[in-house]
Structures are given as C-alpha cells and as structure tokens.
C-alpha cells in the first residue's frame, strides 16, 4: 500500500475525488428534490475516500480521516437520527413525528428529514470507510 502508484493513476484520482465528494454533498442535500438521499450520499462519499486510499495508501488518508474519528462518526449518525425522534417526543409529538419540530408542520418535516438524512449519510459513510480500513489493515 505504501508503494507509490503511477503518475496517471494519481492525477486521475486527483481529478475525480473532489468531484465525487462534491457530488456526494449534492446527493445528500438535494435528496428532497431529486433522486438520492443520505444512504446514496454516504456511499458515494465513502467511495471517494476509498478511491483515494487505494491510490495513495491508508497512512495518507488517515491523516484526514483517522480511524479513531471515523469510529465515532459510525455512531454519531445513528444517534443523530434517534435523537431527532427523542427531540420530537420532548416537543410533544410521537417518536419521529417531525411536525412538532418547528412552528409550522411543513417546516418541521423539512427540518426532520434534513437531520435524519444527514444522520443516515454520516453513519453509512463512516461504516463503509471503517470496513475498508479494517480489511486494508488486516491485509497488511
């Protein structure tokens, strides 16, 4: 993994990875209007990170996304999702009833969906990156 890859591979990776990351954010935040959502966005984000790892090696990627941080994000996303449900309980609704999250039910729905999709995206991306790290580490 530490071996330096060919120039073409590195340059193509440099070209693709930022675009893929940006597309992941687009899919994440545009999921209300077009196809996509948290799950797809998380997977696309993880794919970009994995591509970078395949080309540049795990050590370099882990300077940006260290295992210890990714591990926390695996649960942060799920807690965010479940936390939205608890918040709606405290605000007088049923579990995961977004209507009560804001003054206006429609705004509440928007806020709720935004937050839970973010939670899904964070967990899925972190899980995929984590599984890849684990396999990569085990292979070394």
């Amino acid at each position: 993994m530490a071996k330096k890859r060919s120039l073409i591979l590195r340059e193509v990776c440099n070209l693709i990875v930022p675009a893929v990351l940006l597309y992941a954010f687009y899919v994440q935040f545009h999921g209300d209007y077009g196809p996509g959502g948290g799950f797809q966005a998380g997977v696309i984000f993880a794919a970009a990170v994995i591509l970078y790892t395949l080309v540049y090696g795990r050590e370099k990627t882990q300077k940006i996304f260290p295992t210890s941080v990714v591990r926390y994000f695996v649960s942060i996303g799920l807690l965010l999702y479940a936390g939205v449900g608890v918040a709606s309980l405290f605000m007088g609704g049923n579990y995961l009833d977004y209507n009560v999250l804001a003054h206006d039910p429609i705004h509440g729905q928007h806020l709720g969906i935004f937050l839970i999709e973010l939670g899904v995206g964070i967990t899925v991306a972190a899980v995929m990156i984590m599984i890849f790290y684990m396999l990569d580490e085990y292979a070394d």
Partner: protein
Amino acid sequence: MDIQTIINISLLTLLALTAVILLRLHNLLAAVLLSGIYSLLSAGLFVSLDAVDVAFTEAAVGAGLTTVLLMGAIAVTGREQSVTRHSKLLPIAVTTITAAALIYGTLDMPKFADPEAPIHTHVAPRYIEKSGEEIGIPNIVTSVLASYRGYDTLGEVTVVFTAAIGVMLLLGGSRKPKNQNAKKKRDTNG
C-alpha cells in the same frame, strides 16, 4: 415491440447470462467483478422501471462499494474457490424444490404493471395525493422513506451500524498477534 420492451428483454437476457457465467466460475476475483456487472445491469433495469432511487442505490452500493469491499476480503483470504467433494444431488434437489415453490408463488401475483394490484391501491395513492401538502417535498420516495416510514429507515441504519460493529469486532480486535498468524497461514498455504 416498443423500445422499452426491447431494453427490458435485452437487460434481462444479459442478467441471466451473467448469472449463469457466475455459477460456473471458480476464480473468486472474476466472480466479484461479474457480480458488480450484475448489479449494474439490474440498476439499468430499475431505471427502465422508473425506480431511479433504487437504481441509484444499486449502482452505488452493488456495483461500486460491494465490489471493492469483496475484493478487499479476497485479498485477505484467497482467490480460488475450494473444491467441494460432496455429492451435488442434495443441493440440486433443494434448489429445484425451492425454485418450483417460488415459481408456483408467482402464479398468484398480479400481472406486471396491473393498476389494480394491491400495492397500487393500498397506501400508494395517499402518498401520491397527500405527501405534497403533508410533507412538502417533491421527491415522494424521500417523503416515504424519511417521514412516513421513518421508523423503518431507523432500523435500516441500525443494521448498517451493526454490520460495522461486527466487522470491527472480527478484524479490529487484538490486532497484532492475529495478523501475524493470518500472514503465516497464508504464506504456508500459498
């Protein structure tokens, strides 16, 4: 025959072809690549069925990430399928009976794209008519997944979370000694 039918038939033919080739392969690396192609073909089929969200997921997860993760798994295990020496009669019998039962089950299903099918007369009309004013976002799939069926999606995220915990427990635990053993084992085998 309209263009939609031609596309559907060719995609399904390619799917069946890929599946048959997959069955006959013993090289696991080639099998993983072919299953990626299988996923991509089914993503194409989902697009032609107007299920873009599902197609998106299938292309990203099935064709993209799963391929990489399975290749990672092959890198730590081995490329060749081990040869089985048992008789193949029992597996063939089991699959034949299961397939016959499944095909018998499909006889009761509503016809393809039948507007009177139960799935189209139960809650779907309500989602299509009311989700605009109740949820207020244009993508009905997101409304259903994130709001009407928010509890199910929470369960799905928990499943993904559990998968990560499982992998971390299996591969991430007491790293060093296990690793050396695995490497030694591989070296002696290879």
